[in-house]
Protein backbone atom coordinates (compact mmCIF):
# COMPACT_ATOMS: atom_id res chain seq x y z
CA UNK A 1 0.00 0.00 0.00
CA UNK A 2 1.36 3.35 -1.07
CA UNK A 3 -1.14 6.15 -1.28
CA UNK A 4 -1.54 9.90 -1.09
CA UNK A 5 -4.94 11.02 0.15
CA UNK A 6 -5.63 14.67 -0.63
CA UNK A 7 -2.06 15.36 0.35
CA UNK A 8 -0.79 18.92 0.26
CA UNK A 9 2.59 20.31 1.13
CA UNK A 10 2.96 24.05 1.44
CA UNK A 11 6.20 25.91 1.96
CA UNK A 12 6.72 29.38 3.23
CA UNK A 13 9.23 31.04 0.92
CA UNK A 14 10.08 34.56 2.11
CA UNK A 15 6.57 35.14 3.42
CA UNK A 16 4.92 33.77 0.28
CA UNK A 17 3.04 30.48 0.51
CA UNK A 18 4.25 28.03 -2.13
CA UNK A 19 1.96 25.10 -2.80
CA UNK A 20 4.54 22.53 -3.80
CA UNK A 21 1.85 19.87 -3.64
CA UNK A 22 -1.81 20.76 -3.74
CA UNK A 23 -4.40 18.14 -2.83
CA UNK A 24 -3.00 15.08 -4.55
CA UNK A 25 -5.00 11.86 -4.39
CA UNK A 26 -3.03 9.03 -5.91
CA UNK A 27 -2.71 5.30 -5.36
CA UNK A 28 0.44 3.39 -6.25
CA UNK A 29 -0.60 -0.28 -6.24
CA UNK A 30 1.82 -2.77 -4.69
CA UNK A 31 4.21 -4.09 -7.32
CA UNK A 32 3.34 -1.40 -9.87
CA UNK A 33 5.75 0.82 -11.72
CA UNK A 34 4.68 4.43 -12.15
CA UNK A 35 6.46 7.47 -13.51
CA UNK A 36 5.74 11.07 -12.61
CA UNK A 37 6.34 13.74 -15.25
CA UNK A 38 5.98 17.48 -15.23
CA UNK A 39 7.91 20.67 -15.62
CA UNK A 40 10.63 21.85 -13.31
CA UNK A 41 9.19 23.08 -10.02
CA UNK A 42 5.82 21.36 -10.40
CA UNK A 43 6.27 19.35 -7.20
CA UNK A 44 7.68 16.01 -8.34
CA UNK A 45 10.42 15.88 -5.74
CA UNK A 46 8.01 17.00 -3.06
CA UNK A 47 5.72 14.11 -3.96
CA UNK A 48 8.58 11.61 -3.63
CA UNK A 49 9.64 13.11 -0.30
CA UNK A 50 6.15 12.65 1.06
CA UNK A 51 6.08 9.04 -0.13
CA UNK A 52 9.47 8.44 1.52
CA UNK A 53 8.30 9.99 4.78
CA UNK A 54 10.95 12.70 4.65
CA UNK A 55 8.36 15.46 4.99
CA UNK A 56 4.93 15.45 6.53
CA UNK A 57 1.97 16.68 4.48
CA UNK A 58 0.62 20.11 5.48
CA UNK A 59 -2.81 18.54 5.12
CA UNK A 60 -4.10 15.20 3.93
CA UNK A 61 -2.47 11.86 4.46
CA UNK A 62 0.30 9.58 3.23
CA UNK A 63 -0.33 5.87 3.65
CA UNK A 64 2.49 3.43 3.49
CA UNK A 65 2.66 -0.07 4.99
CA UNK A 66 4.96 0.37 8.01
CA UNK A 67 6.67 -2.93 7.31
CA UNK A 68 7.66 -1.86 3.80
CA UNK A 69 11.26 -0.81 3.36
CA UNK A 70 12.01 2.24 1.23
CA UNK A 71 14.95 2.78 -1.07
CA UNK A 72 15.40 6.16 -2.67
CA UNK A 73 17.63 7.65 -5.33
CA UNK A 74 17.74 11.37 -4.71
CA UNK A 75 17.99 13.96 -7.43
CA UNK A 76 21.62 14.45 -6.29
CA UNK A 77 23.92 11.51 -5.57
CA UNK A 78 24.27 12.24 -1.83
CA UNK A 79 27.21 9.94 -1.24
CA UNK A 80 29.15 9.93 2.03
CA UNK A 81 32.45 11.57 1.06
CA UNK A 82 34.40 9.55 3.64
CA UNK A 83 33.29 6.17 2.29
CA UNK A 84 34.50 4.52 -0.89
CA UNK A 85 32.06 3.38 -3.55
CA UNK A 86 31.52 -0.10 -2.11
CA UNK A 87 31.01 1.26 1.42
CA UNK A 88 28.53 3.82 0.13
CA UNK A 89 26.51 1.09 -1.54
CA UNK A 90 26.71 -0.98 1.63
CA UNK A 91 25.72 1.98 3.79
CA UNK A 92 22.00 1.23 4.28
CA UNK A 93 22.69 -2.48 4.81
CA UNK A 94 25.37 -2.19 7.51
CA UNK A 95 24.18 -3.84 10.69
CA UNK A 96 21.06 -5.22 8.97
CA UNK A 97 22.67 -8.13 7.12
CA UNK A 98 25.73 -10.28 7.58
CA UNK A 99 28.95 -8.98 6.04
CA UNK A 100 28.93 -11.83 3.54
CA UNK A 101 25.42 -11.00 2.36
CA UNK A 102 26.25 -7.31 2.16
CA UNK A 103 29.34 -8.01 0.05
CA UNK A 104 27.27 -10.12 -2.34
CA UNK A 105 24.59 -7.44 -2.68
CA UNK A 106 27.18 -4.71 -3.20
CA UNK A 107 28.93 -6.73 -5.90
CA UNK A 108 25.66 -7.43 -7.66
CA UNK A 109 24.45 -3.84 -7.54
CA UNK A 110 27.77 -2.37 -8.68
CA UNK A 111 27.91 -4.81 -11.57
CA UNK A 112 24.37 -3.84 -12.60
CA UNK A 113 25.31 -0.16 -12.84
CA UNK A 114 28.63 -0.95 -14.49
CA UNK A 115 30.88 0.20 -11.66
CA UNK A 116 32.42 -3.03 -10.42
CA UNK A 117 35.86 -1.64 -11.26
CA UNK A 118 35.35 1.55 -9.26
CA UNK A 119 34.51 -0.08 -5.94
CA UNK A 120 37.55 1.32 -4.13
CA UNK A 121 37.20 4.88 -5.48
CA UNK A 122 36.23 7.77 -3.24
CA UNK A 123 33.26 9.97 -4.21
CA UNK A 124 35.53 12.94 -5.03
CA UNK A 125 37.18 10.77 -7.64
CA UNK A 126 33.93 10.05 -9.49
CA UNK A 127 32.32 11.87 -12.39
CA UNK A 128 28.79 13.17 -11.92
CA UNK A 129 27.29 10.28 -13.84
CA UNK A 130 29.35 7.73 -11.91
CA UNK A 131 28.26 9.23 -8.60
CA UNK A 132 24.65 9.02 -9.71
CA UNK A 133 25.11 5.36 -10.62
CA UNK A 134 26.58 4.65 -7.19
CA UNK A 135 23.46 6.21 -5.70
CA UNK A 136 21.33 3.95 -7.89
CA UNK A 137 23.36 0.92 -6.80
CA UNK A 138 22.90 1.91 -3.17
CA UNK A 139 19.12 1.87 -3.56
CA UNK A 140 19.11 -1.36 -5.59
CA UNK A 141 21.32 -3.19 -3.07
CA UNK A 142 18.68 -2.54 -0.43
CA UNK A 143 16.18 -4.59 -2.45
CA UNK A 144 13.44 -2.38 -1.02
CA UNK A 145 9.71 -3.02 -1.16
CA UNK A 146 9.27 0.55 -2.36
CA UNK A 147 11.78 2.05 -4.77
CA UNK A 148 11.61 5.80 -5.31
CA UNK A 149 13.78 7.43 -7.97
CA UNK A 150 14.13 11.16 -8.59
CA UNK A 151 15.42 11.75 -12.12
CA UNK A 152 17.98 8.98 -11.57
CA UNK A 153 19.33 8.91 -15.11
CA UNK A 154 19.54 12.65 -15.77
CA UNK A 155 23.34 12.90 -15.56
CA UNK A 156 23.96 9.96 -17.87
CA UNK A 157 24.77 9.76 -21.54
CA UNK A 158 22.08 8.27 -23.79
CA UNK A 159 23.82 4.91 -24.03
CA UNK A 160 24.32 4.39 -20.30
CA UNK A 161 20.82 5.67 -19.68
CA UNK A 162 19.32 3.06 -21.98
CA UNK A 163 21.19 0.24 -20.31
CA UNK A 164 20.20 1.40 -16.81
CA UNK A 165 16.58 1.77 -17.90
CA UNK A 166 16.74 -1.90 -18.90
CA UNK A 167 18.34 -2.81 -15.57
CA UNK A 168 15.48 -1.11 -13.76
CA UNK A 169 12.84 -2.93 -15.77
CA UNK A 170 14.63 -6.26 -15.21
CA UNK A 171 14.77 -5.71 -11.47
CA UNK A 172 11.19 -4.60 -11.31
CA UNK A 173 10.05 -7.62 -13.33
CA UNK A 174 12.05 -10.00 -11.16
CA UNK A 175 11.35 -8.68 -7.65
CA UNK A 176 8.28 -6.55 -8.15
CA UNK A 177 8.91 -3.65 -5.82
CA UNK A 178 6.53 -0.71 -6.00
CA UNK A 179 8.43 1.75 -8.17
CA UNK A 180 7.77 5.47 -8.46
CA UNK A 181 10.14 7.21 -10.84
CA UNK A 182 10.27 10.94 -11.42
CA UNK A 183 11.50 12.19 -14.76
CA UNK A 184 11.10 15.17 -17.01
CA UNK A 185 11.78 12.98 -20.02
CA UNK A 186 8.43 11.88 -21.41
CA UNK A 187 9.98 9.20 -23.59
CA UNK A 188 11.61 7.68 -20.51
CA UNK A 189 8.24 7.79 -18.76
CA UNK A 190 6.58 5.86 -21.54
CA UNK A 191 9.42 3.32 -21.68
CA UNK A 192 9.44 2.67 -17.96
CA UNK A 193 5.93 2.65 -16.63
CA UNK A 194 2.58 0.97 -16.45
CA UNK A 195 1.11 4.39 -15.89
CA UNK A 196 2.34 7.95 -16.22
CA UNK A 197 1.23 10.57 -13.72
CA UNK A 198 1.22 14.08 -15.19
CA UNK A 199 1.75 16.97 -12.79
CA UNK A 200 1.38 20.68 -13.10
CA UNK A 201 1.80 23.33 -10.40
CA UNK A 202 1.45 20.91 -7.50
CA UNK A 203 -1.50 19.04 -8.90
CA UNK A 204 -1.95 15.77 -10.74
CA UNK A 205 -3.53 16.71 -14.04
CA UNK A 206 -3.62 13.31 -15.68
CA UNK A 207 -2.86 9.62 -15.38
CA UNK A 208 -2.18 7.65 -18.55
CA UNK A 209 -2.04 3.88 -18.61
CA UNK A 210 0.64 2.56 -20.94
CA UNK A 211 -0.50 -0.93 -21.74
CA UNK A 212 2.52 -2.23 -23.62
CA UNK A 213 4.74 -5.21 -22.84
CA UNK A 214 8.22 -4.73 -21.32
CA UNK A 215 10.93 -4.21 -22.39
CA UNK A 216 9.92 -1.42 -24.72
CA UNK A 217 11.80 0.25 -27.52
CA UNK A 218 11.84 3.99 -28.06
CA UNK A 219 11.30 3.41 -31.77
CA UNK A 220 8.15 1.31 -31.26
CA UNK A 221 5.29 3.28 -32.92
CA UNK A 222 3.03 2.69 -29.92
CA UNK A 223 5.67 4.23 -27.63
CA UNK A 224 6.07 7.18 -29.97
CA UNK A 225 2.29 7.71 -30.01
CA UNK A 226 2.02 7.72 -26.24
CA UNK A 227 4.94 10.07 -25.98
CA UNK A 228 3.40 12.48 -28.46
CA UNK A 229 0.00 12.59 -26.81
CA UNK A 230 1.43 13.10 -23.30
CA UNK A 231 3.72 15.84 -24.53
CA UNK A 232 0.88 17.56 -26.33
CA UNK A 233 -1.22 17.61 -23.15
CA UNK A 234 1.63 18.72 -20.88
CA UNK A 235 2.76 21.50 -23.14
CA UNK A 236 -0.83 22.54 -23.82
CA UNK A 237 -0.27 23.65 -27.39
CA UNK A 238 2.45 26.16 -26.52
CA UNK A 239 6.00 25.05 -26.92
CA UNK A 240 7.89 26.25 -23.81
CA UNK A 241 11.06 26.89 -25.77
CA UNK A 242 9.51 29.22 -28.34
CA UNK A 243 7.62 30.86 -25.51
CA UNK A 244 10.87 31.76 -23.80
CA UNK A 245 12.29 33.17 -27.00
CA UNK A 246 9.19 35.35 -27.51
CA UNK A 247 9.23 36.75 -24.02
CA UNK A 248 12.93 37.49 -24.37
CA UNK A 249 12.35 39.40 -27.58
CA UNK A 250 9.75 41.55 -25.86
CA UNK A 251 12.28 42.78 -23.30
Amino acid at each position, binding site marked *: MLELIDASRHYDVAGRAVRALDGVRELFPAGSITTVVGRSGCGKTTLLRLL*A*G*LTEPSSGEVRRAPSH*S*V*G*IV*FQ*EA*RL*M*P*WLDVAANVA*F*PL*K*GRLSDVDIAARVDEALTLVGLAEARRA*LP*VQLSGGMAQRVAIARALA*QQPDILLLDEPFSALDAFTRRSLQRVLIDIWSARRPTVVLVTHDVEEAVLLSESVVEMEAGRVVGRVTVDLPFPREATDPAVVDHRRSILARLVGGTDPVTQTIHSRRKQ
Partner: protein
Amino acid sequence: MPARRFLAPTAVFAAVAMIWWLAGRAGWTNAYLLPAPSAVVAALSDLAVSGILLKHTLISLQRVLLGFALSVALALPLAVLMSASRLARVVLDPLLEFIRQVPPLALIPLLILWLGIGEAQKLGIIVLASFFPVFLGFRGGIAGVDPKLIEVGRVAGLTRREILTRIVLPSALPELVVGLRISLGYSWRALVGAELIASSAGLGYMIIDAENLARTDIVLAGILVIGAIGLLSDLVLRLAVSRAFPWLSADLEATHA
Protein backbone atom coordinates in the same frame (compact mmCIF):
# COMPACT_ATOMS: atom_id res chain seq x y z
CA MET B 1 57.20 17.19 -6.61
CA PRO B 2 57.85 15.86 -3.07
CA ALA B 3 61.51 16.90 -3.43
CA ARG B 4 60.47 20.43 -4.30
CA ARG B 5 57.97 20.56 -1.48
CA PHE B 6 60.80 19.77 0.90
CA LEU B 7 63.46 21.86 -0.81
CA ALA B 8 61.61 25.18 -1.04
CA PRO B 9 60.89 25.55 2.69
CA THR B 10 64.45 24.45 3.51
CA ALA B 11 65.76 27.14 1.20
CA VAL B 12 63.67 29.75 3.03
CA PHE B 13 65.11 28.66 6.39
CA ALA B 14 68.61 28.72 4.92
CA ALA B 15 68.05 32.22 3.56
CA VAL B 16 66.92 33.50 6.95
CA ALA B 17 70.00 31.94 8.59
CA MET B 18 72.15 33.54 5.90
CA ILE B 19 70.76 37.03 6.53
CA TRP B 20 71.17 36.47 10.25
CA TRP B 21 74.79 35.47 9.76
CA LEU B 22 75.51 38.38 7.39
CA ALA B 23 73.92 40.86 9.81
CA GLY B 24 76.32 39.67 12.49
CA ARG B 25 79.35 39.77 10.18
CA ALA B 26 78.56 43.28 8.98
CA GLY B 27 78.29 44.45 12.57
CA TRP B 28 74.61 45.51 12.26
CA THR B 29 73.70 43.44 15.27
CA ASN B 30 75.19 43.14 18.70
CA ALA B 31 76.82 39.70 19.11
CA TYR B 32 75.64 39.58 22.70
CA LEU B 33 71.98 40.35 21.94
CA LEU B 34 71.94 38.27 18.75
CA PRO B 35 74.70 35.67 18.69
CA ALA B 36 75.73 34.31 15.31
CA PRO B 37 74.04 31.16 14.00
CA SER B 38 77.28 29.26 14.57
CA ALA B 39 77.26 30.22 18.26
CA VAL B 40 73.67 29.04 18.60
CA VAL B 41 74.45 25.76 16.86
CA ALA B 42 77.43 25.31 19.18
CA ALA B 43 75.24 25.96 22.22
CA LEU B 44 72.70 23.53 20.82
CA SER B 45 75.23 20.76 20.39
CA ASP B 46 76.65 21.39 23.90
CA LEU B 47 73.15 21.12 25.31
CA ALA B 48 72.50 17.99 23.28
CA VAL B 49 75.75 16.30 24.29
CA SER B 50 75.33 17.07 27.98
CA GLY B 51 71.83 15.60 27.93
CA ILE B 52 70.32 18.80 29.34
CA LEU B 53 68.35 19.46 26.17
CA LEU B 54 66.86 15.99 26.10
CA LYS B 55 65.84 16.21 29.74
CA HIS B 56 64.02 19.52 29.34
CA THR B 57 62.51 18.54 26.00
CA LEU B 58 61.12 15.28 27.37
CA ILE B 59 59.57 17.04 30.33
CA SER B 60 57.91 19.66 28.12
CA LEU B 61 56.80 17.07 25.61
CA GLN B 62 55.26 14.96 28.31
CA ARG B 63 53.33 17.92 29.73
CA VAL B 64 52.06 18.95 26.31
CA LEU B 65 50.93 15.46 25.36
CA LEU B 66 49.19 14.95 28.69
CA GLY B 67 47.51 18.34 28.63
CA PHE B 68 46.52 18.02 24.99
CA ALA B 69 45.11 14.53 25.57
CA LEU B 70 43.16 15.80 28.57
CA SER B 71 41.72 18.66 26.49
CA VAL B 72 40.65 16.32 23.73
CA ALA B 73 39.17 13.86 26.20
CA LEU B 74 37.09 16.67 27.71
CA ALA B 75 36.21 18.46 24.49
CA LEU B 76 34.96 15.55 22.37
CA PRO B 77 32.20 14.22 24.62
CA LEU B 78 31.21 17.74 25.64
CA ALA B 79 30.92 18.82 22.00
CA VAL B 80 28.73 15.80 21.23
CA LEU B 81 26.60 16.40 24.31
CA MET B 82 26.09 20.06 23.54
CA SER B 83 25.29 19.40 19.91
CA ALA B 84 22.72 16.80 20.85
CA SER B 85 21.03 18.48 23.80
CA ARG B 86 19.39 21.88 23.84
CA LEU B 87 19.32 21.82 27.60
CA ALA B 88 23.08 21.35 27.76
CA ARG B 89 23.54 24.28 25.40
CA VAL B 90 21.33 26.58 27.45
CA VAL B 91 23.01 25.63 30.71
CA LEU B 92 26.65 25.40 29.67
CA ASP B 93 27.09 27.80 26.77
CA PRO B 94 27.27 31.04 28.79
CA LEU B 95 29.77 29.57 31.26
CA LEU B 96 32.00 28.17 28.53
CA GLU B 97 31.80 31.40 26.59
CA PHE B 98 32.88 33.27 29.72
CA ILE B 99 35.87 31.01 30.28
CA ARG B 100 36.80 31.27 26.62
CA GLN B 101 37.05 35.04 26.85
CA VAL B 102 39.65 34.90 29.64
CA PRO B 103 43.21 34.43 28.34
CA PRO B 104 44.75 31.39 30.06
CA LEU B 105 47.80 33.43 31.03
CA ALA B 106 45.53 35.68 33.11
CA LEU B 107 44.57 32.63 35.11
CA ILE B 108 48.10 31.59 35.92
CA PRO B 109 48.21 33.44 39.27
CA LEU B 110 44.96 31.78 40.29
CA LEU B 111 46.13 28.39 39.10
CA ILE B 112 49.35 28.79 41.08
CA LEU B 113 47.35 29.59 44.21
CA TRP B 114 45.00 26.67 43.68
CA LEU B 115 47.24 24.02 42.19
CA GLY B 116 50.71 25.13 43.32
CA ILE B 117 53.59 25.29 40.89
CA GLY B 118 53.72 21.59 40.13
CA GLU B 119 52.46 19.54 37.22
CA ALA B 120 48.77 20.12 37.95
CA GLN B 121 49.13 23.86 37.37
CA LYS B 122 50.90 23.31 34.06
CA LEU B 123 48.31 20.83 32.87
CA GLY B 124 45.63 23.30 33.91
CA ILE B 125 47.10 26.02 31.73
CA ILE B 126 47.51 23.72 28.75
CA VAL B 127 43.95 22.48 29.04
CA LEU B 128 42.61 26.03 29.29
CA ALA B 129 44.58 27.06 26.23
CA SER B 130 43.89 24.06 24.04
CA PHE B 131 40.35 23.06 24.97
CA PHE B 132 38.43 25.55 22.86
CA PRO B 133 39.86 24.99 19.39
CA VAL B 134 39.03 21.26 19.57
CA PHE B 135 35.72 21.86 21.24
CA LEU B 136 34.55 24.59 18.89
CA GLY B 137 35.99 22.88 15.82
CA PHE B 138 34.15 19.67 16.58
CA ARG B 139 30.92 21.46 17.39
CA GLY B 140 31.18 23.48 14.22
CA GLY B 141 31.77 20.31 12.26
CA ILE B 142 28.77 18.63 13.83
CA ALA B 143 26.55 21.65 13.20
CA GLY B 144 27.77 21.82 9.62
CA VAL B 145 26.73 18.29 8.67
CA ASP B 146 24.87 18.21 5.37
CA PRO B 147 21.16 17.61 6.16
CA LYS B 148 20.89 15.85 2.80
CA LEU B 149 23.20 13.11 4.05
CA ILE B 150 21.13 12.74 7.21
CA GLU B 151 18.09 12.13 5.03
CA VAL B 152 19.94 9.26 3.38
CA GLY B 153 20.25 7.73 6.85
CA ARG B 154 16.64 8.41 7.74
CA VAL B 155 15.30 6.66 4.65
CA ALA B 156 17.59 3.71 5.38
CA GLY B 157 15.90 3.47 8.78
CA LEU B 158 18.93 4.42 10.87
CA THR B 159 18.32 5.19 14.54
CA ARG B 160 19.27 8.57 16.02
CA ARG B 161 22.35 6.99 17.47
CA GLU B 162 23.39 5.46 14.16
CA ILE B 163 22.87 8.76 12.39
CA LEU B 164 25.19 10.36 14.95
CA THR B 165 27.94 7.77 14.71
CA ARG B 166 27.71 6.92 11.02
CA ILE B 167 26.92 10.29 9.45
CA VAL B 168 27.32 13.25 11.80
CA LEU B 169 30.63 12.37 13.45
CA PRO B 170 32.48 11.33 10.29
CA SER B 171 31.38 14.46 8.47
CA ALA B 172 32.56 16.59 11.42
CA LEU B 173 36.03 15.10 11.14
CA PRO B 174 37.64 17.66 8.81
CA GLU B 175 36.82 20.54 11.15
CA LEU B 176 37.81 18.47 14.15
CA VAL B 177 41.22 17.91 12.60
CA VAL B 178 41.67 21.64 12.07
CA GLY B 179 40.73 22.15 15.72
CA LEU B 180 43.20 19.48 16.82
CA ARG B 181 46.02 21.13 14.92
CA ILE B 182 45.29 24.56 16.36
CA SER B 183 44.96 23.03 19.84
CA LEU B 184 48.28 21.29 19.62
CA GLY B 185 49.95 24.57 18.68
CA TYR B 186 48.22 26.41 21.52
CA SER B 187 49.30 23.68 23.94
CA TRP B 188 52.92 24.38 23.13
CA ARG B 189 52.62 28.12 23.49
CA ALA B 190 50.75 27.87 26.77
CA LEU B 191 53.19 25.35 28.17
CA VAL B 192 56.27 27.39 27.45
CA GLY B 193 54.47 30.39 28.93
CA ALA B 194 53.72 28.44 32.09
CA GLU B 195 57.30 27.17 32.32
CA LEU B 196 58.68 30.68 31.96
CA ILE B 197 56.69 31.87 34.94
CA ALA B 198 57.00 29.09 37.46
CA SER B 199 58.96 25.96 36.82
CA SER B 200 62.18 24.15 37.56
CA ALA B 201 62.35 22.11 34.39
CA GLY B 202 61.21 22.12 30.78
CA LEU B 203 62.20 24.12 27.69
CA GLY B 204 60.57 27.30 28.99
CA TYR B 205 62.56 27.01 32.17
CA MET B 206 65.75 26.35 30.19
CA ILE B 207 65.21 29.62 28.32
CA ILE B 208 64.46 31.75 31.36
CA ASP B 209 67.37 30.21 33.25
CA ALA B 210 69.71 31.04 30.33
CA GLU B 211 68.41 34.60 30.26
CA ASN B 212 69.31 34.98 33.93
CA LEU B 213 72.81 33.79 33.08
CA ALA B 214 72.93 36.14 30.09
CA ARG B 215 73.31 33.19 27.71
CA THR B 216 71.41 34.48 24.66
CA ASP B 217 72.85 31.62 22.60
CA ILE B 218 70.99 29.14 24.79
CA VAL B 219 67.85 31.27 24.68
CA LEU B 220 67.92 31.16 20.88
CA ALA B 221 68.74 27.45 20.88
CA GLY B 222 65.68 26.85 23.08
CA ILE B 223 63.50 28.88 20.74
CA LEU B 224 64.73 26.89 17.76
CA VAL B 225 63.96 23.61 19.49
CA ILE B 226 60.46 24.74 20.48
CA GLY B 227 59.68 25.88 16.96
CA ALA B 228 61.10 22.72 15.45
CA ILE B 229 59.13 20.45 17.75
CA GLY B 230 55.97 22.43 17.04
CA LEU B 231 56.52 22.07 13.32
CA LEU B 232 57.29 18.39 13.68
CA SER B 233 54.29 17.58 15.85
CA ASP B 234 51.96 19.28 13.38
CA LEU B 235 53.54 17.21 10.62
CA VAL B 236 53.10 14.00 12.59
CA LEU B 237 49.49 14.85 13.32
CA ARG B 238 48.80 15.56 9.66
CA LEU B 239 50.50 12.37 8.56
CA ALA B 240 48.57 10.32 11.10
CA VAL B 241 45.31 11.89 9.95
CA SER B 242 45.90 11.36 6.26
CA ARG B 243 46.90 7.76 6.98
CA ALA B 244 43.77 7.08 8.98
CA PHE B 245 41.40 9.08 6.76
CA PRO B 246 42.68 9.20 3.18
CA TRP B 247 39.62 11.14 2.03
CA LEU B 248 40.75 14.04 4.23
CA SER B 249 44.06 14.55 2.44
CA ALA B 250 42.63 17.21 0.15
CA ASP B 251 41.28 19.15 3.14
CA LEU B 252 44.62 18.95 4.90
CA GLU B 253 46.34 20.47 1.93
CA ALA B 254 43.90 23.36 1.93
CA THR B 255 43.91 24.27 5.63
CA HIS B 256 46.82 25.82 7.40
CA ALA B 257 46.29 26.21 11.08
